[in-house]
Structure formats: structure tokens, C-alpha cells
């Protein structure tokens, strides 16, 4: 998931499958920070551990899913004196001492949604990883966490990317904070025995939240093992930057087109495009996918409050003939669906871009 704005933005991927029954393990969990690494300008890779004993441990997850993190110190509701209701502690002869955290610093109220970039289990529990960009109060707080700090999170949430049984070539197209779910997806593809190529784009080189591998990104858009998160599974990557500071100069779709055109018809019929990133980028990717007849799953993002299907904030227009909310001039019927529980992954052809 990407986190795009001050309020929580959910990143989403499109899931091909309509069955997203994997929501039953959704829980609020206490987590402990394992590491928080500054990957590049404004971007942090946060790893949090949930203990096995915490409500039976963290539920099963798959790429595309997300968590909602409380971007403020966890509430100590039972500590009757910690929040005594006094916003000021007045000592004679001095200025009032501001006691409540809300009075002394900017604190995010709502949780912020983030796509999983990875997850692994060991004897100490479940480690959950996200990559986040500092864009506001909540993400700033997250960026300052250090090992041992406590966080409060809800998850796993949302549906997942799917790997169709009749295909085996994944084209993973991630722009900006849309990249993290692609890292998790690459892991799943390697396990499933797929071939895959990562497409990685950003405005400029120091905003690329990746770890560089041995090969140098190619200026002609040729895929090489340049991005560690893909290369560790032996998958190559195509890197594009708007300013050409690294890799191919241009949009992520420029790299994608070159690659798709290099494929045989047979290879195209094996391919699935997976995308997550800014709305305009995903729209462009979806158009390319349609043009080449390649199925595309898009992990959408939208501002959300709860992430649990309640607040009705994270709406997205999805083609639906069943109780439609409206009809386009083209005759397509659409319905508002929720990014958090109906998505975040949708078939790109179902999205009313």
C-alpha cells in the first residue's frame, strides 16, 4: 500500500479472484519494532514483530494485503493516572506544564494503511515489514521509531493478488510507494515457480526505495538484476526515472512497453501485469495491459479511516451490474466498492479509472 497523503491512504492491488475470505484472522495486535531503516530520501523500511502469544499470532497473509498502524504512542487506557484528564499541570511560580501528548506535539488520530512488503515467521513470532514515505504527521512519527518501540496495528486486511494457474510470467510494476507490495509479490512468485520482472519507477534516483544489487540499471531499459528485492529471487528489473538520474529516462510505462514488445506472442499469453502506485500511473499501466491483451491486477489506494469496512471512506468505482450506483455514458454500470474490504486488489478492467 502506498501512503500518499496525510490521512491514511490505502494501497491496493487488484485481485482477480472475487473470493477474499481471508479476512477472518483480522485482529488488533501489539507489535515491537525490530528495525527501522532509512532506505533513501524520505523512505523507511519498518519491521515489526508480533509475538506468537498475541491473540494466537498474526494471521496468514499474502501479497496485496495491508495493515493499519497506529501512528502515535499506543494508548495506556488502563493506567488511570497516565491521562488524568488534566491537560495542564500547574505548579506555583512556573508556566503550566503540558501533560497530554495531544497538547505537546502533533499526533495522528487515525491509523495509516500500509501494504506489506514482506512477512516471515520464526520462533519469536511474526515479522511484518512495510516501506513508508514520510508525508505527514503519522509517517513522521513512524520514521522516528527505533528497535524495541511498541506499535499498535490491525491486520491482516484486504484481499490479495492472485497468480492464475494458466500463467507463469509476472510483470510487477511499482511506482513510488507502490513498490513495497511488489517485493512481497516477488517472494510469492519465486515460491510458485514463476518467472518475473520488476518495473521500478520514481521521479529521481534518490526517491527509489530499493536496495541496489550488483548489476547497474540499464539506460536502455534492458532488464538486469539491479534491484536486490527482485534479484534475490533471480528476477531482473527495469528501472526508470523521470529525470534519467538512473536507469531509463522516462515513465515506468516506457520501460514496460519496451519489455512487452520484446516478448513473443506465446510469452505474452503467459504474462500477468501487477501494478501498484499513483492512480495515473496505474491507469496508464492498465491501458497498456488492455492494448496488449494481458490481464492486469491493480492494487488501489484511497484515503481511509478504519480499514475494516465501516467508515465508507475508501470508495472506488468498480464495474458492477448488480445493484449499480450509476451508469457511464458508455453503458457500463458501476458501484462504489471499498478499497479496504472489497480490495485493495481489483482487475484493472473492472476499475472505472
Amino acid at each position: 500500500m502506498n501512503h500518499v497523503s496525510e490521512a491514511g491512504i490505502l494501497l491496493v492491488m487488484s485481485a482477480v479472484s472475487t473470493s477474499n475470505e481471508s479476512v477472518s484472522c483480522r485482529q488488533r495486535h501489539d507489535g515491537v519494532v525490530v528495525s527501522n531503516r532509512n532506505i533513501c530520501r524520505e523512505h523507511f523500511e519498518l519491521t515489526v514483530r508480533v509475538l506468537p502469544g498475541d491473540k494466537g499470532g498474526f494471521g496468514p497473509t499474502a501479497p496485496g494485503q495491508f495493515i493499519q498502524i497506529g501512528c502515535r504512542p499506543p494508548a495506556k487506557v488502563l493506567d488511570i493516572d497516565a491521562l488524568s484528564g488534566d491537560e495542564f499541570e500547574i505548579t506555583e511560580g512556573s508556566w503550566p506544564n503540558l501533560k497530554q501528548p495531544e497538547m505537546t506535539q502533533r499526533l495522528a488520530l487515525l491509523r495509516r494503511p500500509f501494504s506489506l512488503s514482506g512477512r516471515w515467521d520464526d520462533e519469536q513470532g511474526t515479522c511484518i515489514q512495510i516501506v513508508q514515505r514520510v508525508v505527514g504527521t503519522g509517517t513522521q512519527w513512524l520514521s522516528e521509531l527505533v528497535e524495541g518501540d511498541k506499535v499498535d496495528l490491525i491486520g491482516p486486511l484486504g484481499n490479495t493478488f492472485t497468480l492464475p494457474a494458466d500463467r507463469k510470467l509476472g510483470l510487477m510494476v511499482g511506482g513510488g510507494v507502490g513498490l513495497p507490495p511488489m517485493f512481497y509479490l516477488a517472494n510469492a512468485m519465486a515460491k510458485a515457480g514463476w518467472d518475473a520482472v520488476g518495473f521500478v519507477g520514481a521521479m529521481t534516483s534518490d526517491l527509489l526505495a530499493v536496495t541496489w544489487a550488483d548489476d547497474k540499471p540499464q539506460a536502455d531499459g534492458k532488464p538486469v538484476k539491479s534491484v536486490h528485492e527482485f534479484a534475490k529471487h533471480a528476477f531482473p528489473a527495469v528501472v526508470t526515472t523521470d529525470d534519467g538520474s538512473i536507469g531509463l529516462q522516462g515513465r515506468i510505462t516506457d520501460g514496460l512497453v519496451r519489455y512487452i514488445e520484446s516478448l513473443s506472442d506465446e510469452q505474452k499469453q503467459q504474462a500477468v501485469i501487477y501494478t501498484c502506485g499513483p492512480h495515473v500511473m496505474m491507469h496508464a499501466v492498465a491501458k497498456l495491459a488492455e492494448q496488449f491483451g494481458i490481464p492486469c491486477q491493480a492494487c488501489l489506494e484511497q484515503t481511509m479511516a478504519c480499514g475494516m469496512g465501516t467508515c465508507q471512506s475508501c470508495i472506488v468505482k468498480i464495474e458492477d451490474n448488480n445493484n449499480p450506483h450509476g451508469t457511464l455514458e458508455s453503458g457500463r454500470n458501476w458501484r462504489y466498492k471499498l478499497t479496504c474490504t472489497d480490495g485493495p486488489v481489483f482487475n484493472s478492467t473492472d476499475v472505472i479509472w
Partner: protein
Amino acid sequence: MSQTIAPNDVSLAVDLAGLKLDNPMMTASGTCGYAYEYQDFVDLHTFGAFVTKSISVEVRKGNEAYRIVETRGGMMNAIGLANVGLDAFVKDKLPQLVSMRENGPRIVVNIAGHSITDYVTAAGTISQNISVDAIELNVSCPNVGDGLVFGTDPTMLKKVVAEVRAAMRDDCKLIVKLSPNVGDITKTAGAAVDGGTDILSMINTYTALAIDVNKRRPRIANGTGGLSGPAVRPLAVYLTSRVYREVAKAAGVPIIGMGGIQYWQDAAEFLIAGATGLAVGTALFVDPATPVNVMTGLKEYLAKQGVTDINDIIGTLKMPGDQGF
């Protein structure tokens, strides 16, 4: 105060004009959907009462994105009363909702409308279900074209309340949710009481505006939205206190207080100000178990205060000028 009281010995049971709750904790309409959305996160049976999102006669798809924005200490929303409509609600949602009533929360259905006929139709239809304990009238949704008219005009409010009350099953309670977007809330509170409401709930959200300074446009699609969350709590506590002292207490009409309740301390303020019921709204989005946490804290607080019955603290505020201040 001298003898020690154990938190578990504190009774939280309250009686809202005959609507008996095991505890005062309720959900604020629109922050808890149709209930089942939160069932993975909290045992809904622990709540005193459950209040649905607003149901309208017609299906409402709601406003365009963006529908919410976080502001400091609060959030603004303009969802636009998105809901499945009366028929689908009664057929699909209500049976599931009332199924949790046994050994669980009382069921309150919130309704919204554009006309008295809308309100009468919705209230009459829904109250036919004997498991619906109360109907709450949303006469103050600030995010639809004409929603505020009923909520701000005392004459209109009294009329709609009286007609809805007459159309409802007799033992189904009527709650009127007051808008804070008025000059003198005691006028609208009084009108609701005169119209025959059993209970008042307060407050709905404050109409507010957040601006994207780069685009010089509102940050939510509707333009304005309703502000909720901790930022409004002191304002809500004030209005609760005023209505309790100037209207509700004398009329014997209980108040459900809400507005920024996140911790037990917030809830305690509303109780002292005169609220008998307590609704949690925005905080549910952060943690659906907030009402449970608030209850735990309240019991400890009341025990420390030497209070064994929560009713003994309701409306105990002393203001400057009061006897015994």
C-alpha cells in the same frame, strides 16, 4: 469515600427512559456500519447498545471521493449517508443485527430523511420489528442538501418528532440526535422534548471546512464536512451540560452524550455533565474495542470516587454559582 470499593462491584447499568442497558456504552451512528463489520475485532455483546448508520427510505450511494480528511485532533467526513436503503436494510441487514440482541446490546436504528413522510415511513417500518429497541432520528446530517432544516428549526423539529413518535410501535423508544450547528441548542432540545422524544442524543458533527492550500480547494469532495473526534469533546461536553441543566433534567429526558470519547476520562466528563448513555464514534475507527476499554477505566474511576452505581455520578457537575460549588 472511606471504604474500599472493588471496580467489579461498580454497577454500570443505566435506564434511558425505559431503555435498559447493561452499561452506558453505545456506538455513534455511522461509525460502526451495520455491526458485523467489527465482529472480528471486538465482542459486540459487551456494548450496552448498538446504533446503526443512518438508514434512508431510498438507496444512497453517497458522495464522491474524497470523503474524509484528518485534521488536528479530529476528522472531517462527508460520506453522504451512503446506505442500502430501507427495503434492503429490513430484508438483509436487520435480521443479522437483531440476532445479536439476545444477551447482548439493545438495538437502535438511526434513520435519515428528506421529508416528514420519509421519517414516518422509515420509523414506522423499522419499529415493527419487535427486536428494535429504539429509533434514532438523524435530523442533523450536515452533509446532504436539506438535512439541517429539521435539525435547526424548532417548529419543524417538533412536528417531525411528533409525527414519527405517533407512527412508531409504542414500546419502541425514540431518540432525537441534536445538531450542534445552531445558535441556541436548548431551543431545538426543547422542541424535541415537546414533540415527544423519549431520549436526546448529542451531538452530531460540527460543520467544518478544511482547505488544500496549494489547490485552494476544499480537501473533501463535498466541500464542507462534519468534524468529529477529540477536537470537539469540550464543545460537546458544554452543550451536554447546558441541555441537561436547562431542558432535559426537568423534563426527565435522558441524554446520550457523544463527541470525541476516546478514553474513560472523556466518558466521565459526559456523565458528570449529565449524560446517561455514552456513544463512541470516531475512536471506533481506530480501535473497535474502545468502548470496552472505556468501561474498564470507568469502573476503576468510579470505585476510586467511592461510587458503586454509575447513576450516582450523572449530572453531578457543580458550576460557579451553583449551590455547594
